[in-house]
Structures are given as structure tokens and as C-alpha cells.
């Protein structure tokens, strides 16, 4: 069988599995649809959270980003895991005890009114839509790379699958498909990682292999060899970063508190039966996430080393077949600057701008480019995603592993997209229609509206995936920055400070939101040319500004809170009640406000 047939087979089988699970676990009430009936086992919820959390970016791009950033990749590794500690200790148990369906539910009840609820809905929708557009795009990219279909067709197939299981199954369907998707995803990530670790160090455990000796007889450890090789080629050392310490600090912090403030992650902890389950479930979630997140830096380092070994100073005609295959797709490009027929790799861009192909081949057989070559010695353009996508080929693994990686990447993208679409639809049907606009809805009507808004959200997300606003990569900074600067502080103060009032919380959320959005927009869209450490405030990049936005949120909230009346006695009672695990109920719909 060819790689493509195998890929169709694996992807088709995994899709059939997801849809089968959705039909088996379809939702019959809003309780099922919003929080899976509140009866999910903490370990199952941990797995579902892990799949929800790890997106196409974690699966496909992260190892590649680390491979090229070296130590600086730490911001993603720590930033996207450390937030779970905050979630487990500061938010999840209390929100579970609160016992309603959504994050705006909590903000609306705790800050007594629709004003706070509406601001929370606004934050939630902004955060979730920016995030989901990237996921649908990821689905399209995987389809086009592995199955040779147009990105548009790929996005539409992805939409159809998510449609079936999110609209039919709601949170219940999503939870159990995410459990399956986690298994597919982690298996697909570990198999090539183990083989590439064996290939380079003879150690089957990638996490240990990263600290092991390279098996080329040199006696050097992987990281030492990588440092030496990169320094020899004129790069910075792998284990030392190029970013300023303050920026590494700010980005890591923003990603951590952003993670803890992401609605689609928080809502997963509404689905377990008890408060103690919410705590332990966060532990399971992070354990399942850590399996991939501790493997990724190993994959990154191995892949970079292997890439340099197989590519640098090789005659083009003798490069590995994957080099030419991915060149055909446009993820690799080569310009023979010194006309020696060999591929030289080094720091800097090989040519100016994006690759423009003449449509012809050079004498060596490479795709000819019209771009102006740059003055440096580097002749190779490599897309970072190649490090995971091409890993099975680099490690000379059988074709079924390639098919498995395709199925894994799709599982990662679909599971995250479904989780995001669900919180969007919930906030529209429940928070906006029912609570904010106070429409009297029966449970069945509300369920119908929830399904309709899920369907609408999928269509919008698909549209954004097919016609990406041109800044999909950049908007991730947006999602985390906004979550860090708006929702996280409001929820935290709601639990830990019983005197925080409505006026303070709303002012804080808006200040954090506006400041962070303005800072990111300025450097990303209005004046991107000035986006460098000299112009950044205190040297903090747009990726890291969410941590400053969060501080601003706290400061404004406390300043404004002193000017307004303290919260009513019923709120103090609510705060007392959520701090105590005993007496936890199934999630339900009440009217505190």
C-alpha cells in the first residue's frame, strides 16, 4: 500500500471512531450538552482536558519551534504547563463547587449582574474565536500535506466531522471523543519520538535520550554536540537563549495565567462529580500533557541535529528523499549561492521575502527561485513544522508511522476545535440568549439553541480557516494575552477576595482587555516594523504583555473597588459557600443574581 492509501485508511478509521463515540454518547439535556451531566471520571476528564488543550500547534509546531529557538523554547514548555498548577489550586475546585455551567455564569453571579456577565461573554468569544480559526487552518494544512487535497476541502471535511460530534453530542460527546483523540495523538507522537531517540542515542526514552551520549562514537552528549555544531555554523548555542530574561519571564507568566484563564480549559473541570475530583483531575490532565511536553524538547533537539547532519554540505543530488519531497510542498527551499552543488546551512534567511518559484528546475534538479539571495552563507529555507511532519521519514520509519502522524495531528486539531466551539455555543445560547437577554427558555428549547449556535460557530470557524485573516500565527498571542489580562484576575479575585465588588471587577477586566489588545495590535498590525526590544515597553514583547495586562487588571480593580459600594451580603455568602468542598451538587441552572 502507498503512504497515501495508508493515510486515508488511518484517518478514515479514526474519524469513524470519533463519530461512533458521538452517537453512543449523544446529549439529551442541557446538562449533558454543557457539562456532560457532571459525571465524568477524573482520569477520563484529565485525558479529555489534555486533548482539548493540546492543539495542532502543540502537536505539529512546538517541537519545531523549540528546535530552532533552543533554550528560548522554554517559554512554551513551561508556559503551557505551569498554568495547570494555578488552575488546580486557585480556580478549578471553587468553580466546580459553584456548580453552574459556564465561566460567565460565575462572573455574572459573583459580580451580581449582567454587566459583568456581558463583559465576560465578550472576552470569552474574542479569546475562543481567535484560537479556533488557527485550529481549522491546522486541519486544512494537515489534509493538504498528507492527503494531497486542497486546504479548502480539508477544512470542509474537518468541519463536517466536528459538526457531527459537537452538535450531536455536546460536552458529553466531545469528552469521550477527546479521550479517544488523546490516545491517538499521544501514540502518534511517541512512536516516531522513540525511534528517533534510538536512532541518535540508542536510548528508547526520549526524555532521557536528550541527556544521553550521541551514538556516533564522539562521546559527546546530544546537547553538547548540538551546541558545538551550531556554534561551528555561526548560530548561537542551543542551550543559551537569545531573548532577554525579562521577556522570557513575561511570556512564560502570560502563557501560564492565560492557560488558567482559557474558558474551554476551565469548563472541563465543571464536568467532574466533586470538588476533590476537580483538583485531582487537573493533576491527571497535566500528567497526560506532560507526556507530550517533555518529549517535545527531545524531538526538537534530535531533529535539529539530524537535520544538520543529513543536509549540511551534502551534494543536492545525494540529499535524503524527504528533503526533496518537502521541497516540492514548499516547506524547504534551496538556493545554491556559491554554485558548488552542495547544500550549505547557516544562520539568517537564505533569500529575501517569501519563495517565488519560476516553475523550472535548476541543473541540480532543485526548484528554481526568483528571490534575491541574501549576503549570508545560508542556502536553505526550512519551515519549522518540518521537524515533526518529516520526523518519520528522517528516522526512516515504515509508511504506517507517517499515516499515524497524520491521524495524530488531525486528532490534536479537531479535539481543540471541538472544545472551543462548545464554549462559544454555550456562551451564546446560555449566557447571552438565556441569561443576559433573559429569554424564558425551556430546557429543550435551550438545547436546540445550543445546537444551532454550535453549528453557526463551526461555519464561522471554517470560514476563518479557509480565509485566514493573514495573522493566524500572531493571534495566538492575542488569545493568551486576553485570557491572562481579563478573565483570570476577575475569577481569582472573585474567589479569594470577598470584598471585591462589581465595579472593580468590570473596570479591571476592561482595562486589562483594552490595554493588552491595544499593545498587541500596535506591534502586530499597525506598526510591525517597530516590533523589537528597543521599542517594546520595558523590553516586553506582545507575546508577554498579557502578564502586564493582568497586573493592570488587579491594580484598576482595587482602585475602582474602593470608590464603589461593597458587594451585597448574598455574594459574601456565595464566596463562603464555594470555599467549602462539602455539599457539592450536580451542575445546574440557578438564578443567584
Amino acid at each position: 500500500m502507498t503512504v497515501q492509501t495508508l493515510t486515508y485508511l488511518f484517518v478514515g478509521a479514526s474519524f469513524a471512531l470519533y463519530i461512533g463515540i458521538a452517537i453512543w454518547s449523544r446529549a439529551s439535556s442541557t446538562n449533558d450538552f454543557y457539562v456532560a451531566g457532571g459525571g465524568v471520571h477524573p482520569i477520563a476528564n484529565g485525558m479529555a482536558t489534555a486533548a482539548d488543550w493540546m492543539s495542532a500547534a502543540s502537536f505539529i509546531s512546538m517541537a519545531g519551534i523549540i528546535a530552532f529557538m533552543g533554550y528560548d523554547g522554554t517559554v512554551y514548555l513551561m508556559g503551557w504547563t505551569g498554568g495547570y498548577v494555578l488552575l488546580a489550586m486557585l480556580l478549578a475546585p471553587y468553580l466546580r463547587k459553584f456548580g453552574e455551567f459556564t465561566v460567565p455564569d460565575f462572573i455574572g453571579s459573583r459580580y451580581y449582574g449582567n454587566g459583568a456577565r456581558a463583559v465576560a461573554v465578550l472576552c470569552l468569544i474574542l479569546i475562543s474565536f481567535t484560537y479556533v480559526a488557527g485550529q481549522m487552518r491546522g486541519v486544512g494544512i494537515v489534509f493538504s500535506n498528507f492527503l494531497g487535497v486542497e486546504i479548502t476541502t480539508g477544512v470542509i471535511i474537518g468541519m463536517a466531522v466536528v459538526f457531527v460530534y459537537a452538535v450531536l453530542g455536546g460536552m458529553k460527546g466531545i469528552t469521550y471523543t477527546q479521550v479517544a483523540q488523546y490516545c491517538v495523538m499521544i501514540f502518534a507522537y511517541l512512536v516516531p519520538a522513540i525511534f528517533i531517540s534510538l536512532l541518535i542515542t540508542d536510548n528508547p526514552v526520549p526524555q532521557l535520550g536528550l541527556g544521553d551520549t550521541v551514538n556516533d562514537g564522539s562521546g559527546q552528549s546530544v546537547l553538547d554536540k548540538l551546541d558545538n555544531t551550531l556554534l561551528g555554523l555561526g548560530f548561537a548555542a542551543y542551550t543559551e537563549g537569545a531573548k532577554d530574561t525579562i521577556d522570557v519571564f513575561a511570556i512564560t507568566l502570560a502563557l501560564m495565567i492565560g492557560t488558567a484563564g482559557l474558558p474551554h480549559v476551565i469548563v472541563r473541570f465543571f464536568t467532574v462529580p466533586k470538588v476533590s475530583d476537580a483538583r485531582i483531575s487537573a493533576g491527571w490532565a497535566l500528567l497526560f500533557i506532560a507526556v507530550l511536553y517533555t518529549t517535545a524538547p527531545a524531538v526538537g533537539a534530535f531533529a535539529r541535529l539530524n537535520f544538520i547532519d543529513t543536509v549540511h554540505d551534502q551534494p543536492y543530488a545525494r540529499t535524503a528523499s524527504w528533503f526533496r519531497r518537502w521541497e516540492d510542498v514548499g516547506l524547504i527551499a534551496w538556493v545554491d549561492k556559491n554554485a558548488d552543488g552542495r547544500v550549505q546551512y547557516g544562520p539568517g534567511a537564505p533569500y529575501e521575502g517569501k519563495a517565488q518559484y519560476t516553475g523550472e528546475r535548476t541543473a541540480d534538479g532543485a526548484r528554481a527561485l526568483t528571490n534575491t539571495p541574501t549576503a549570508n552563507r545560508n542556502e536553505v529555507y526550512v519551515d519549522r513544522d518540518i521537524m515533526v511532519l518529516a520526523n518519520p521519514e528522517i528516522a526512516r520509519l515504515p509508511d504506517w508511522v507517517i499515516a499515524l502522524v497524520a491521524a495524530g495531528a488531525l486528532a490534536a486539531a479537531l479535539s481543540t476545535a471541538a472544545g472551543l466551539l462548545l464554549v462559544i455555543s454555550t456562551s451564546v445560547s446560555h449566557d447571552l440568549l438565556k441569561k443576559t437577554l433573559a429569554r424564558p427558555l425551556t430546557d429543550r428549547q435551550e438545547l436546540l439553541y445550543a445546537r444551532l449556535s454550535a453549528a453557526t460557530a463551526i461555519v464561522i470557524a471554517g470560514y476563518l480557516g479557509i480565509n485566514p485573516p493573514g495573522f493566524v500565527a500572531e493571534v495566538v498571542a492575542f488569545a493568551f494575552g486576553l485570557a491572562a489580562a481579563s478573565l483570570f484576575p476577575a475569577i481569582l479575585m472573585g474567589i479569594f477576595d470577598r470584598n471585591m465588588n462589581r465595579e472593580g471587577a468590570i473596570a479591571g477586566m476592561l482595562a486589562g482587555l483594552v490595554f493588552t489588545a491595544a499593545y498587541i495590535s500596535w506591534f502586530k498590525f499597525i506598526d510591525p516594523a517597530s516590533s523589537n526590544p528597543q521599542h517594546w515597553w520595558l523590553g516586553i514583547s506582545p507575546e508577554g504583555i498579557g502578564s502586564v495586562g493582568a497586573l493592570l487588571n488587579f491594580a484598576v480593580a482595587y482602585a475602582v473597588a474602593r470608590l464603589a459600594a461593597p458587594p451585597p451580603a448574598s455574594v459574601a455568602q456565595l464566596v463562603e459557600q464555594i470555599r467549602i468542598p462539602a455539599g457539592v451538587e450536580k451542575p445546574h441552572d440557578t438564578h443567584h443574581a
Partner: protein
Amino acid sequence: MNSTAYWRENLRLMGILLAIWFVVSFGCGILFVEPLNQLRLGGFKLGFWFAQQGAIYLFVAEIFVYAFLMHRIDRKHGVADD
């Protein structure tokens, strides 16, 4: 049941664990990564290991420790959910 005493114990446990969380991730992995890189752990520079491996292991362990100890505190104060 004394809810103030319960809450104070919770805050104390949380404070200790978050201090460790901060020291290991932001401390060892970022602020003091360079001096720690002078030391080695097998083939790793120690600071680099904390940043890309060690901190993540600690995060996982801390949540389980918190869940376990917190459940004991719940029981001690008669507010456990089981």
C-alpha cells in the same frame, strides 16, 4: 467546623506550594539559569534541564501533592465532599 481555620490552612498549603512552583520554574528555569548551567545533570546543563524538563515534572507532582494534602485538610475540618 471552623471555616476560618480551614481557609487559613488551605492558604498556607497553597502559599508553600506556589513558592516552590515559582522558585523552580521562574527561579531555576529563567532567573538563575546561567549560574545553574555551570552545573551538570548527566548530559544536561542543570539550568536547561530545569527549564525544559524538571519544571514540568515538578508541576505534575505539585498538583497531586496538593490534591492529596488538601483532601486531608478537608476531612480534618469535616468539610470533605465524600
